[in-house]
């Protein structure tokens, strides 16, 4: 595991790959994640970015916050775009026109990955392109105004699944994208969080060693959309991890490893309570029932995950 000191050194060396001056909201988790990912990779990097907060806030023409080659085409095709860049790289290496190692990274939100970009992602994973895909998962369409996505948790108040007098927020459970990617049997898949940047850096280090497609689904607090204080990005994400709502784990060549096991698994209310998007749940009987169901689901998924770890790592 890299130490905080190492992370700081990398920030000195490569921190300008994504500079300040962008217009992401104060308190947004995305710059921390982007820097941690880019700082960890030693080789030159080319970035593909799906349409979303990061893209809009970092490349308002004629300005740019990127000091690495960067491309954005549309919302649903970051994976296909980076696949094309990587294919060009392979062809030009074969023809002797390029002779150095270049790494390819795609950044996309949950909307651009779980929903509209799922097909392009699946295709690129199956074809085996050599790239690292980072999901900036803030659990809704934040760039367009907090509409629900298939990553939005059940019960959350989003603008297209509002908490109303009859329906208490989003009725459906979120999709498990990480497991969908695992099912593609790619060499490395992980979940990480802005609250655990050393863990994220470690996962990027591991991922980048593998040829082929890699994906890290990173939990990314959105104070605006989640209605949390501006200085709470790390704290709220930490609660998601400590309640086991967002477990930190990796699947390396099919073997599961939970990279962080909270000493004390906190009740789900601890994570729900500070967030405005769940406030309505605490005000009705129906809401309280839903909280109990959420707890049940978290417990079940956590047990499942531990079982997968035992099954694939073997005892000991």
């Amino acid at each position, binding site marked *: 595991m890299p130490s905080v000191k190492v992370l700081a050194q990398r920030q000195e060396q490569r921190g300008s790959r994504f500079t300040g001056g962008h217009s992401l909201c104060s308190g947004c988790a995305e710059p921390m994640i982007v820097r941690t990912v880019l700082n960890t990779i030693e080789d030159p990097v080319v970035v593909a970015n799906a349409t979303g907060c990061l893209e809009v806030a970092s490349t308002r023409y004629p300005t740019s916050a990127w000091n*690495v080659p960067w491309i954005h085409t549309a919302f649903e095709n970051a994976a296909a775009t980076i696949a094309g860049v990587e294919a060009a790289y392979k062809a030009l290496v074969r023809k002797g026109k390029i002779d150095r190692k270049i790494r390819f990274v795609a950044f996309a939100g949950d909307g651009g990955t779980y929903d509209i970009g799922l097909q392009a992602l699946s295709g690129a994973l199956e074809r085996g392109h050599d790239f690292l895909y980072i999901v900036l998962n803030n659990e809704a369409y934040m760039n367009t105004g907090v509409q629900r996505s298939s990553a939005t948790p059940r019960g959350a108040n989003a603008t297209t699944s509002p908490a109303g007098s009859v329906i208490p927020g989003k009725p459906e459970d979120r999709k498990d994208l990480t497991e969908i990617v695992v099912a593609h049997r790619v060499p490395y898949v992980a979940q990480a969080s802005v609250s655990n940047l050393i863990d994220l850096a470690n996962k990027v280090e591991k991922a980048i060693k593998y040829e082929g497609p890699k994906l890290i689904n990173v939990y990314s607090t959105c104070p605006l959309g989640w209605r949390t204080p501006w200085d709470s990005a790390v704290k709220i994400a930490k609660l998601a991890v400590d309640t086991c709502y967002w477990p930190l784990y990796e699947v390396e060549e099919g073997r599961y490893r939970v990279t962080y096991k909270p000493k004390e698994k906190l009740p789900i209310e601890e994570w729900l309570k500070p967030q405005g998007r769940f406030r309505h749940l605490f005000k009705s009987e129906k809401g309280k029932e839903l909280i109990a169901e959420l707890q049940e689901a978290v417990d079940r998924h956590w047990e499942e995950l531990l079982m997968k770890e035992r099954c694939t790592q073997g005892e000991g």
Partner: protein
Amino acid sequence: MKKVMTGHKAVAEAMRQIEPDVVAVYPITPQSEIAEYYAQYVADGIVRTELVPVESEHSAMSACVGAAAAGARVITATASQGLALMVEILYIAASMRLPIVMALANRALSGPINIHCDHSDAYLARDSGAVQIFAESAQEAYDYMLMAQRIAEHKNVRLPVIVNLDGFTLTHSSQVVETLSDEVVKGFVGDYEPFYPLLDVDNPTVWGPFAMPDYYFELKRAQQAGMEAVPEVFLGVQGEYSKLSGRNYKGFFEAYKLDDAERVIVVMGSTAGTAKVVVNELREKGERVGLLKVWLWRPFPRKEIADALAGKKAVAIMDRAISFGNMGALYLDITSAFAGREGPVFVNYIYGLGGRDVPAEHIVQVFEGLKDAEPGELRYIGLRE
């Protein structure tokens, strides 16, 4: 070398000789055989191209954009629904000034679903910012695939170029095609010099930024300048290619017995071949008829076509797609080119939708119909009433 081959094979042969760095392609009737031939070339090690067998045409065009921005020479091919799925990204490719060459095996758009030829797919991409060329034969499809590469990559153009060839009529039928030697083609297309490639990691570039009302308008105007540069480049490339091939490509359209013609048909694609036979037959009977076959449709050579048609008595403009609620797109192109200028009687004929056959007698009827045409009429030929 003269060989009998299908339109598919002619396009695939041109692609083999160009040997692009990346081909990203998805199967669709009647284009699939182009992808299949090329995949075989890759499998047999005949070309060093990186083939990206994508999961959709949307990803095909997205991968083409990524690869072209990276600095690769890129070709793709599609038809109908495939182009419809690509269109979102085709606009972006044009806005990024990426010289992606595409063979479009023209096929009717759904619905109802239909696999046969019309030009509704090409018309869908009319305003995309891609250059569009129509081929009459497998020979022209081969020739224009090679010329398209040069037009697309010219420093003043830098735009996607679509080479249209009629689905089935051209893609699946065998014709005699004369190909150039590999060496001559390699010399003609030359080495590719990318502009500001993403893979030049020491000089990072931003592709596809976000432009607000303060810049968007100027960027689109700059894109139009690329289109404005096409005609001169097109003629130059034609001239060079004609010398190499011994075939006569001169101008934005082919004027067939047009000079002294009184009644004229304007058409794009393979129907021009049928029209030539009819023109010959009618000429033998002493009728002064002629044909204008459009090669370059976008950018539209307004002045040159208007000059060629000025002074004619009556002109039938044949559109192989409906523009619902208005006249056909080619009709509008030509009639608007006559704004403020005295012109012939123009009639719009919609023909051949969804692969409806266009036999010689229909062309005869069109010429016949021009004798009593009312200006601005919209007629349908080959339609069961």
